[in-house]
């Protein structure tokens, strides 16, 4: 039997209602149910353990103040997930200088060869390689390709245009491919 983990875990509405009324035990239950999922998501997006750890605290402090805004018209975990993404991106934005893209940049990305072959297949240290990307590129790559957000949603999180998300994603893949190929060359040379 598969154990349900992360944001897939559902918490009862009764517990949420109790937390909304200020019940600390109910809030603790929510915290322990989702803290790990929040950390993992924040860490995936920003790639920094300390920042992700801080973000878990920031997110739950935000939840303390905003929990009464949750109207139970959607899944609580989904609502919480949005807060994690938003807080993480806000932190990234505050700590890094975002690269602005122009239409000219966008037209340069019109290519069709990024996925001709699975260049990632031989990569054994994807973690390190993605950490070598800029924090913005990593965030957009993870949000679009793993977390399933579309360009429109990502643009909204970053308060940028859709072009920003498209170009950043394309650049992230290009940079990742270059790093994989460079890693392969180094490994071949060492052998």
């Amino acid at each position, binding site marked *: 039997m598969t154990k349900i983990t992360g944001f897939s875990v559902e918490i009862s509405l009764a517990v949420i209602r109790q937390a909304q009324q200020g019940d600390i035990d109910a809030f603790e239950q929510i915290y322990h149910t989702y803290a790990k999922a929040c950390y993992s998501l924040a860490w995936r997006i920003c790639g920094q353990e300390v920042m992700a750890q801080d973000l878990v605290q920031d997110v739950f402090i935000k939840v*303390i103040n905003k929990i009464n805004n949750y109207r139970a018209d959607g899944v609580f975990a989904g609502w919480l997930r949005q807060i994690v993404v938003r807080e993480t991106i806000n932190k990234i934005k505050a700590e890094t200088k975002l690269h602005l893209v122009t239409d000219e940049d966008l037209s340069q990305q019109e*290519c*069709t060869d990024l996925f001709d072959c699975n260049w990632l297949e031989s990569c054994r240290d994807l973690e390190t390689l993605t950490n070598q990307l800029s924090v913005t590129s990593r965030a957009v790559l993870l949000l*679009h*390709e*793993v977390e399933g957000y579309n360009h429109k949603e990502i643009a909204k999180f970053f308060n940028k245009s859709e072009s920003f998300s498209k170009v950043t994603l394309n650049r992230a893949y290009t940079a990742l491919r270059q790093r994989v190929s460079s890693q392969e060359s180094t490994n071949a040379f060492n052998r």
Partner: protein
Amino acid sequence: MHLTDEKLLELNESGKEHLLQCTKCKQRAKVLIGIRQQLDQQICQSSTLPDFKASWHIVKQVHEEVHQQSESLQKVKTTKAQHKITFWQVSTMMLAASLLIVAIFPHMKVNPEIELPVANKIVLVKWIEENVQLQQLFEQQYNNNLLTRVSINQLQFKLASIDDLLQQAYFKNASDEEKLTLWQQRKKIIKNSLLNIKKLKLKNSHTISI
């Protein structure tokens, strides 16, 4: 014409249709799915988890502080509301008590043979009516919250003292002049407060227009 990488990364309806017909793009889409799976599986799987219990203590502290703050805020709001109700309950009750005494006064007269001069009676009735009207007017103005808590308390104290004196005057069957003086004082106090509200209103509108 094959799908660009950008279109492949976020397929729209026409892109999906194209994939059904184009073997090359279908193959590229498969590669992309494989890459996505690898990203999903390999990133964040090896990350060491922090101590969530320590982090919880900080969150708990904030929760307690926020909860205490909201409780205190709620208390202040309730006290304010209660104070407002108490003030009107008291002042309205005092006036009502005075009016009741005025109404039943003819039946309580200790010396029925002493009759009030007609002129004085008319003035007395007129001033009682004016007091009631002024108090109603003041209640409407008071709702605008223009007066400070201190001035409201002062007014409450003054009205309560006069109403007390008025009740005593009627019980003691005091002289007509004494009662008239008290009703006149009461009227003056409410009038002054209304005047203060007017001044504050003018001041406020002047500030807004600036």
